[in-house]
């Protein structure tokens, strides 16, 4: 078993593409999307093969010892503790590796078609490979600093890719916003690391899990880790960056902001689940935040008109589902939903990308319509994703989502209010997803004449990933998690079966309502309500934190700068001035005067030592 190939292949892809890009800037010859994309895709496919190979090797180990550590090099030493750069493969990281490299390869492939007309595809693919390298570090790291390295690395790659079209200041701003909001969450990660260092004495996850802490410290650690996750995984209160992150190229949204990076919060909670589940407070906070996020962002998604924004809020909402799974102490259901969600959400994002590509960068769903005939492959794969997110049997979402719904009621940490909120969120999910599907594909066309003529299905390089992901969205849930068999059956008692039926019925009702409401839309609708603006949470952050910080800075500028720093400078000047004036008296310019001073000084020193003048002045 050798894990280094897994992470090194994307790194090589990044380096090769980076060098190609730098060379192309010098001789101003564009590196074609086929070449750079081909390199990146092959790197990812090989990495996927390595992940598969390691996965099967891991499966052959006995069930209790499914863990493999590979130390690459000693990393750094702290007082009384050394941290190695160690990759750790266990069932959890193995599943994440498969999702990252598998879905990642498909999205790389898709990007070749999507970025065909871009000015610098080599740069794009270099960033994309860098992201995969960092993401694999995140899930394979055996210690907190290693995960943090990946955590920051994916943040960097996300920032670079959101602002990829950097000529548009709005997109650059969105990238910065994502970066800053993630930094806020990182405080939680850092402080959690400090606590682990101080109270556990080790940053290795196994050590942390096996060292019992006192209850307060366990709760603090859990909540700090969760706070870090709210940043990366876009939960309340730090979720507003994700919808803006849609400024990046659509495959990026599919890979980073739907399938992989935003699920790293779930990964971290799953990785530290012993600590999390040791504290009931932490669990209930996670469940409450997850449920609120799932519901509120589902409401917001119902009022969006931008196709990618709808999907973005949908992602936030689905992440909320996963957090609820972690919050009721059922992390494994969350990880299962991560996997199925990666399939169907990546599929829908890529489908949306295909639509946007066909319509020449049109993103408003009210300016689409009737695309079922024109984009048949996109349509049918999108339907698979739609059915999966609705949780219709036998699509993959049915298994993972209903498991979360059941657990939110039946788990010892679940409760009726939690369950009801989750059902409401599931209902809204079905509503906005059907609305999206109907407005884009089924309702009468509202496109302009010129646009409508040039609409064409995307090339095979883009539709192939769609078809593969479509199949995965159907079958992805049949086998449960590859690490964890027969879960749905064991959980589903009679009430479980009832919940399943209820949620499917609810989804169908919501879908029917949405179809009735939007099926005949013929004109561009102007939605202008508070939900469309995300409940003005962004505006609140801007006025409260943004302007608040500005005001504090201004106040500091007036008070501290004027009163303290300026005054200190003035005093320094005055002291130098005064001492200069005093001492310049001695500078007469006559060598004899200097001689006089010299001898007087010599006599003084001699007097001090020889005649014991100093003994009267003891210090």
């Amino acid at each position: 078993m050798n894990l280094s190939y897994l992470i090194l292949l994307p790194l090589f892809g990044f380096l090769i593409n980076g060098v190609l890009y730098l060379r192309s800037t010098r001789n101003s010859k564009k590196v074609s999307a086929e070449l750079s994309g081909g390199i990146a895709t092959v790197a990812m496919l090989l990495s996927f093969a390595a992940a598969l190979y390691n996965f099967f090797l891991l499966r052959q180990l006995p069930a209790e010892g499914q863990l493999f550590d590979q130390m690459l090099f000693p990393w750094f030493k702290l007082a009384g503790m050394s941290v190695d750069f160690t990759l750790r493969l266990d069932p959890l990281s193995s599943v994440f590796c498969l999702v990252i490299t598998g879905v990642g390869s498909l999205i790389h492939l898709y990007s070749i078609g999507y970025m065909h007309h871009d000015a610098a595809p080599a740069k794009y693919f270099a960033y994309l490979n860098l992201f995969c390298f960092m993401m694999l570090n995140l899930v394979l790291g055996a210690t907190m600093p290693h995960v943090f390295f990946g955590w920051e690395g994916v943040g960097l790659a996300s920032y670079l890719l959101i602002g990829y079209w950097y000529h548009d200041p709005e997109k650059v701003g969105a990238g910065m916003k994502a970066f800053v909001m993630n930094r806020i969450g990182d405080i939680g990660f850092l402080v959690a690391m400090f606590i682990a260092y101080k109270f556990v004495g080790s940053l290795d996850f196994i050590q942390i899990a096996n060292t019992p802490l006192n209850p307060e410290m366990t709760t603090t650690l859990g909540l700090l880790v969760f706070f870090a996750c709210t940043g990366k995984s876009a939960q309340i209160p730090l979720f507003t960056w994700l919808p803006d992150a849609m400024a990046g190229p659509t495959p990026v949204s599919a890979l980073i902001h739907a399938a992989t990076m935003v699920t790293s919060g779930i990964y971290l909670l799953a990785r530290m689940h012993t600590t999390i589940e040791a504290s009931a407070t932490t669990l209930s906070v996670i469940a409450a935040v997850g449920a609120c996020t799932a519901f509120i962002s589902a409401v917001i998604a119902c009022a969006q008109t931008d196709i990618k924004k709808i999907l973005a809020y949908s992602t936030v909402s689905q992440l909320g589902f996963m957090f609820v799974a972690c919050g009721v102490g059922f992390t494994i259901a969350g990880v299962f939903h991560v996997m199925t969600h990666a399939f169907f959400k990546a599929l829908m994002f890529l489908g949306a990308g295909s639509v946007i590509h066909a319509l020449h960068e049109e993103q408003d769903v009210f300016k689409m319509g009737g695309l079922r005939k024109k984009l048949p492959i996109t349509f049918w794969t999108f339907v698979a994703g739609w059915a999966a997110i609705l949780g219709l049997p036998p699509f993959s979402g049915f298994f993972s989502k209903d498991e979360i719904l059941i657990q939110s009621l039946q788990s010892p940490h679940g409760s009726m209010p939690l369950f009801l909120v989750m059902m409401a969120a599931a209902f809204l999910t079905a509503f906005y997803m059907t609305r999206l599907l109907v407005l884009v594909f089924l309702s009468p066309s509202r496109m302009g004449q010129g646009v409508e003529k040039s609409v064409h299905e995307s090339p095979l390089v883009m539709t192939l990933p769609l078809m593969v992901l479509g199949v995965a969205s159907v079958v992805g849930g049949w086998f449960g998690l590859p690490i964890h068999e027969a879960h749905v059956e064991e959980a589903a008692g009679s009430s479980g079966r009832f919940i399943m039926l209820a949620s499917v019925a609810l989804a169908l009702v919501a879908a029917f309502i949405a179809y009735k409401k939007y099926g005949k839309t013929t004109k561009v609708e102007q939605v202008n309500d508070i939900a469309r603006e995300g409940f003005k949470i962004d505006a609140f952050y801007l006025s409260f934190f943004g302007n608040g910080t500005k005001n504090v800075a201004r106040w500091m500028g007036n008070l501290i700068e004027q009163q303290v720093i300026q005054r200190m400078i003035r005093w320094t000047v005055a002291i130098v001035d005064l001492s200069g004036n005093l001492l310049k008296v001695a500078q007469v310019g006559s060598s004899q005067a200097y001689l006089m001073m010299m001898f007087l000084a010599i006599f003084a020193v001699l007097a001090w030592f020889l005649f014991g003048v100093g003994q009267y002045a003891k210090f």
Partner: protein
Amino acid sequence: MNGEIQPMMMVVVALIVFGIGLFGLLIRKNLLIMLMCIELMLNSVNLCFVAFSKMHQSVLGDLTVLFVMTVAAAESAVGLGLVIAMFRTLKSVDTDQIQILRD
């Protein structure tokens, strides 16, 4: 004892000569006189060396005197050269006139 010159007497004489030299160096304005004062100081030190050499029955002091005299000769040669150069450029050897350090 009687009739012989006591070493301490020589040290006292040397101190007096050194004082004259120092005093002259500090108050006389003529560079030539100042150079002579420096020679006086050097020679007073030589006197001390000789006295102490005698006192400790050691030849080292006498030896050092020879070195000091050599150096003093070189020093006065350089010093006189400097004084002549200064007189040529500044037309004066009066320290009151030569205060260009301040400018």
